[in-house]
């Protein structure tokens, strides 16, 4: 369990650093894909609720440090997402296309809705237009396109490194 948490945190820290540096320059139609969210959700569906909520909390704190969002905003968002998306672990059949796209859709919608609720409840001062605009539609499409690729990549990594094929010698 602890190993899973550290692995996931390591991977997500790298994705966070890449997203805030290299990938932040890949902007399509004025928006950038939320790779961090997609990777987090896909890892959550593989690692289960317990590990993912812990990973989500610490990842969220890390995100909060590199933004001006109030400390705890992303920690709340990601720990809840980790718990909810982790519930699907072992219960849902993951085909290579439809389920990742569906997850990408759910994750983007979840982030928007919970973000808006946090903004409203804690009076964080962001206007409604920050959550409801055409850019969100573009980002949703980008996330949907990206989800199967990320899912395939992590499936490949898992197969390559976690379950190496063994010969007759065991």
């Amino acid at each position, binding site marked *: 369990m602890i190993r899973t948490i550290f692995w996931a945190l390591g991977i997500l820290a790298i994705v*966070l*650093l*890449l*997203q*805030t*540096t*290299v990938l*932040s320059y890949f*902007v399509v139609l*004025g*928006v950038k894909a*939320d790779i*961090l969210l997609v990777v987090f959700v896909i890892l959550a569906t593989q690692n289960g*609720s*317990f590990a993912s*909520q*812990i990973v*989500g*909390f610490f990842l*969220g*704190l*890390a*995100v*909060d*440090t*590199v*933004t*001006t*969002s*109030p*400390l*705890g*905003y*992303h*920690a*709340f968002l990601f*720990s*809840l997402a980790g*718990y909810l998306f982790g519930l699907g672990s072992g219960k849902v059949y993951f085909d290579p296309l439809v389920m990742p796209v569906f997850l990408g859709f759910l994750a983007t919608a979840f*982030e*928007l809705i919970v*973000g808006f609720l*946090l*903004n409203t409840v*804690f009076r*964080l*001062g*962001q*206007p409604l*237009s*920050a*959550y409801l*605009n055409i*850019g*969100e539609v573009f*980002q949703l499409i980008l996330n949907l396109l990206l989800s199967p690729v990320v899912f395939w990549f992590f499936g490949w990594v898992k197969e390559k490194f976690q379950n190496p094929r063994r010969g007759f010698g065991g």
Partner: protein
Amino acid sequence: MSSAGSPLRHLTNRYRRGLILTAFLVSSSTMILFNGTPGVAKPQEIGLSVFGFLQGLISGTVHAATQLGGSVVDLTDLQARYQKAATLVKKYEGNERALVQLREENRRLREQLSFHQSLPYFNVPVEIIGKDPSKVYSTFVVNKGYLDGIRKNLPVVATQGGVTGLVGKVAEVGLSSSVVQPILDANLFIAARIENTRHEGLVTGKGNNQEILSMSYVKKASLTEVHQGDLVVTAGIDSLYPADLLIGRVKTITTKEYQTSLDIELEPILDFSRLEYLNILRSEP
């Protein structure tokens, strides 16, 4: 034989997942509630110092790789230019071309020199090493921090195509990196005025990286005087930003019968998607 604590332990084990989630959600909410208080702000500064350092490393590596690639391309390009220049040198007598280049370079240098001298503030040039990963907030991480004399709330400007405009302010300071809150952020308010009519108003962003600003509290009586394309500058009355820094141009003006002020949409003077280098202004060296 069971101890008295067994049912409690059984319950705890059974609902362990939910209990941990609740603990996380409660602590996150508490942190949001007490946001800005010194005890909560400190971990954020420490985290920024660590992440800012790593971001600087990655950004620097990518920058170096890009420069290396660019240098190879430049070298090939230079070689071709050299051949061309050699042919030209043979073709033309005299140094007219060099003279034109020198004149142009001289003009640019004069322009830069006058810009530098015209700033009444000391400026610290910084490079953007990271951008906000979230959707709602639109901050930049820059490569200088507390050790370079950067402090919270210092104004940040940038120059694009010879025009210097306001970028935002320093929102958080780490040891060797800082977070810049741009004027596009919905939580940043700037006292501003229309440059030619001198009417005052309050400029704020619309969040979510939308490159559009909103100016409110401009008196309705100014409707006939304010026009599309008018420049908007900082008013200099909130002590954070120097006066007359360019912010944007008037894009649309709307007025409602029941309101006493105008709603003005501005187009920022700077293209925020192309920003690479910024200047943080300080009143002391």
